[in-house]
């Protein structure tokens, strides 16, 4: 089963206004030969960009991040900034129990 099929089993509520995992400097990636982020990420958020000549060499599909927090520790150039998504956004796990497939209720305001 490839990773995209695995991720289809999960629910995501992506935040269109805030990208919680980012590459700080695309130029550093251009000179990076380790590209450890591509191997490490369990949800294939980091992808090699075949148009790397003209565009940033590593794409960040942050909407499918499962928030393990590991990437920020592995980049040899300290080039990944990670924080958790804003309240209520992001992935949700339910241990395969379908009763947790609840409709989303927007976060309450103070």
């Amino acid at each position, binding site marked *: *089963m490839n990773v995209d099929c695995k991720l289809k089993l999960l629910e995501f509520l992506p935040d269109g206004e805030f990208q919680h995992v980012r590459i700080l400097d695309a130029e550093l990636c251009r000179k990076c030969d380790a590209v450890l982020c591509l191997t*490490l*990420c369990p949800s294939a958020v980091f992808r090699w960009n075949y148009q790397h000549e003209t565009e940033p060499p590593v794409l960040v599909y942050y909407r499918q991040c*499962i928030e393990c*927090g*590991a990437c920020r520790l592995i980049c040899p150039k300290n080039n990944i900034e990670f924080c*958790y998504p804003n309240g209520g956004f992001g*992935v949700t796990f339910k241990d395969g129990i379908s009763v947790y497939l609840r409709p989303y209720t*927007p*976060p309450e305001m103070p």
Partner: protein
Amino acid sequence: MLKDWFAGVKKGTSQEIIAEKYYTTAVKKYDAIIAGAGPAGATAAYFMAREGMDVLLLERGPYPGAKTCGGSSIIAEHVHKLFPNFWEELEYERLISHQAYWIMTEDDAIQIAYRSTRLSDAPYNRFSVRRVKLYEWLVKKATAAGATVRFNHHVSEILYEGNQAVGVRISKPQDCIYVANIIILADGANSLLAEKAGLSRRVSAHDLSLYAKETIALPAEVIEERFSLPAGHGAIIGLIGYPTAGFNGTASIHTFRTSININVGLAVADIAQAGITPHDLIDRLKAHQYIKPLIKDGITTEYGANVIPEGGYFSIPELVHPGSMIIGDAASLVNGVHGFSLAMWSGFFAAQAASKAKKHRDFSVKFLRLYQQLLDESFVMQDLRANAPQAKWLRDVPYFFDLYSRVANEAAYHITKVYTIPKKAKRHYIFKKITSMQPIGKMLKDAWSFLKVIR
């Protein structure tokens, strides 16, 4: 009381707007705020609320357990002492009466199993539980005791007045602050809050393991048949060697009522080195000839990944600070893969310290230090201290699990296989075979250091 803090904030920022709101609407001050409604945070909230404290439990996910996955089982004795006869309330999955270790290579497996129906008598030994059920049960207990819980609330930083923690900031969409006398950090492994506040160092990629998991649905009878279990009983199998592709790490199988969880994990630093992605590690293990029959015709219902602190005793940060305490995974309180009970006990101890501090109206480290004391005297720290050298040792001997799984299986193979040579010659042959994999001197050295570590 936040005046000084706000005085330092530039005018015209969103902070100022919040500050105005804070002073005009007289925001309520809690006795304690807990960031993270995991086993650590929810247990702390429960015991504090029971002491009559006004507690606010903040969780970034939309329901308990929404943000964590993998495993899992709990140790009955540890939980029973905090929540007597918890099995009457908690919806557990199976009573574990079968524990096994498989030492694996591509082709072989040495399987060491212990099973006993004595393990399934009250007060029981271990239960398999689904995370969401465990977290939900604990959070419900906390709210029933009087704690306030807010979901979808992401704590983005701890607020200070001088060096005294006095509140928390909630990120968007709420974009607000809450204030309290005591702030408890229970935000789990890789604690961003503690790091940002300068209460702990950034965790090392060697001290944190990344586990990928898959939940595979199967009918209850099929699980019982494949693992030869009495009805309602469950098995936990630890898998060593093959699953972690040449590095130290572990894999496990947990049986639930109508599904099983397969987990594989190794240090974050090693995954990058191994050159194999976490999802491929899982697939590789699922395709192993001895695992495949166990999950045949099963339907994968969930995939996930999560980190667990494995640095042990030496990676534990300072736990008590003016106005704040760090508990659970955020404090690296994990022994092997057991984290739930340590998290719950640390929450319990922190609650006692908090309650004492409230009685004396002193929220400096003076009374909060009781948390550290209770923890030090308990099984939590004593076990962690006893296992302290393990984490470092596994780093120093990175080939241990892989190489010795091979050696053990090679030996087992030749012992099992019948040859047409005399017994004595066979022994000599096996010795030659094994020492060709690792020189005898090196092997004795590793064995000696291993014994020193586990003694």
